[in-house]
């Protein structure tokens, strides 16, 4: 059936989890491009035939005309599928700038073609130049702020330490109110636990 491969590309993309990028399906993509070329030569030969028969292309409504129309609409359908595929991928790719920064990790960049990599670079640099015009980094504060301080219980003797805003004696079982950024390293090492209220 005409147009089925193009639809397949989109199904593949939409079956992925939101924001996840599947590897570019170059084989199917190229197949669809080939289909478009085949449809195009059908259109050429059918319209050519109409003209050879000395008929007016604008008014003729014979089998050849409708045949050509079907091929024409098949190209359009394929074009829409290919464009939607690339466009939606590009939207995911540009969103990566916010999530992973300006360098794409290897496991993501292998899923892109050359043009997509270039697009990512261009889009990132547009964003960076916007942020520098504003003198404001927009990649931080992505979610509403929470209290920067948390309540923690010390699980093992750490001793007196110089933290960013205080130097508490972090004795075992003592409870403190520390900056989240100061406490995080101790929590991940299992030396402290966060207390809920």
């Amino acid at each position, binding site marked *: 059936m005409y147009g089925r491969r193009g639809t397949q590309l989109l199904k593949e993309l939409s079956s992925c989890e*939101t924001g996840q990028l599947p590897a570019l399906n170059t084989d199917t993509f190229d197949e669809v491009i080939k289909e478009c070329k085949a449809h195009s030569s059908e259109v050429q030969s059918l319209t050519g035939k109409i003209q050879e028969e000395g008929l007016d292309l604008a008014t003729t409504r014979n089998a050849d005309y409708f045949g050509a129309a079907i091929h024409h609409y098949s190209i359009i359908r394929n074009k829409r599928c290919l464009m939607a595929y690339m466009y939606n991928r590009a*939207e*995911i790719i*540009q*969103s990566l*700038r*916010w*999530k992973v920064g300006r360098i794409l990790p290897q496991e993501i960049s292998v899923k892109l073609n050359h043009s997509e990599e270039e697009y990512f670079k261009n889009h990132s640099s547009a964003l960076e130049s916007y942020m520098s015009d504003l003198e404001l980094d927009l*990649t931080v504060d*992505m*979610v*509403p*702020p929470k*209290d920067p*301080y948390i*309540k923690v219980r010390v699980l093992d003797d750490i001793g007196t330490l110089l933290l960013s805003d205080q130097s508490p004696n972090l004795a075992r079982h003592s409870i403190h*109110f520390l900056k989240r950024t100061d406490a995080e390293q101790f929590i991940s090492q299992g030396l402290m636990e966060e207390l*809920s*209220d």
Partner: protein
Amino acid sequence: MAGQSDPHISLFSAAEIEFVAEDELVEIVPNISMEPLNFTCGDFGPFRPQMPTEVPMWLAVALKKRGKCVICPPQWMSVDKLTQVLEAERDTEYAFEPLPFHYVELSRLLFDHAHEDIPDLYMVRTLIEDIRDVRFHKLESSLKLINERVNAVKLKNVSAMEMNIVRPFLVRTLQSFYKLDSPQMIHNPVTTAYRQAQAADRGPRLELRRRHMIDLLRR
């Protein structure tokens, strides 16, 4: 994308709705002395022990966490008031009682951070859960009334969190009816004839029109 949620499905995350709620004012009784705080969002204080003062919820919670104040639960959070609200909610089929726009988030913040300041904590918590359930059930059944193209839906007294939960479903439903029931979509001659017959008959047509705006206040 700009790294945020899909603009047409969920506009505001639960965290963003809570962020907005945290600006609501609440009364606290400090146990410390502190000079006035001249914030970008307004001036608060001065703070003196045992002297009640109004502050935004986020500030109240921050002071509470540090053991510097007692939070006074708002009036609507008393057992009496909530019992009345619950009864009234149960008495009506489609109407919603007036409660603060952010009652869900505010009560949750207080339960999480100031539970010892709430008299009859257990009762209050149960009442609010019941009220939420009744209201949500009503909201669900009133949405079932939408079965044709409508131009507006009235949601008087529906709260921020309730609204945010039904938003994706409601917007999609309204849009689908709007699109499918648009004049351009109707090519069927039978339907057209039926519509013309209706148009000729002034009475039922007006009746139908009035129903185009669904009013959840209908009692």
